[in-house]
């Protein structure tokens, strides 16, 4: 008789909350890095060391990219506000 077990599995989500503002770029860089670089618990020490170094490099690239994107977006939003006559708010956003 042929026998095979089929099992459903349900993973666990993580919930992250903030108050009076959103998540910072470090949070999003961490989540993106986790999606890109998974490191096996069973990996050999020298492989794990290389993987951790690669992971840190990926994290720094993503973080820098996110900070640049945020800065660019603020310039865009600030410019749009200035165009419609809200120079004071535009200045505030640019200086955030």
């Amino acid at each position, binding site marked *: 008789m042929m026998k095979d077990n089929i*099992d459903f599995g349900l*993973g666990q989500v993580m*919930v992250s909350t903030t*108050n*009076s*503002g*959103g998540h910072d770029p470090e949070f999003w860089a961490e989540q993106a890095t986790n999606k890109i670089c998974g490191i096996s618990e069973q990996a050999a020490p020298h492989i794990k060391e290389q993987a951790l170094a690669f992971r840190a490099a990926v994290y720094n690239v993503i973080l820098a990219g996110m900070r640049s994107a945020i800065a660019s977006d603020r310039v865009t939003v600030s410019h749009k506000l200035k165009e419609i006559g809200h120079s004071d708010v535009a200045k505030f956003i640019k200086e955030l």
Partner: protein
Amino acid sequence: MAITSAICNSFKQELLVGTHNFTNGANSFKLALYTSSASLGAGTTAYTSSNETSGTNYSATGSALTNVTPVLASTTAVCDFNDLTFSNVTITARGCLIYNDTNSDKSVCAIDFGGDKTSTAGDFTIVFPTPTASGAIIRLA
């Protein structure tokens, strides 16, 4: 009344008759948040508004998820979604329900957060696990 993390029993049968398609761009799935008074678990068959979270900037029925097309991780089929953020919300939730918005709101799974989670004028983010054979949100081994 409680929320128990479980793949819904009805979902298992519905998979075999092709009700759910997790391919990116195929069926649309949503995630709704619930208070600790909700009763959700393996026996849940569809979205319910009963004891759904309410609060500033949270809309009833929750938010749409972005499906990541299922793949095989070794011999296990795994499913994943992009992380979901409810922005600028003031809410408290104890768990959530993922359901198929395309097909009659049929439920997929219920998830207990392990405790009440609260955001006050902030982000409420659901971070899905890495889609591995042992950790993905939905696995079929």
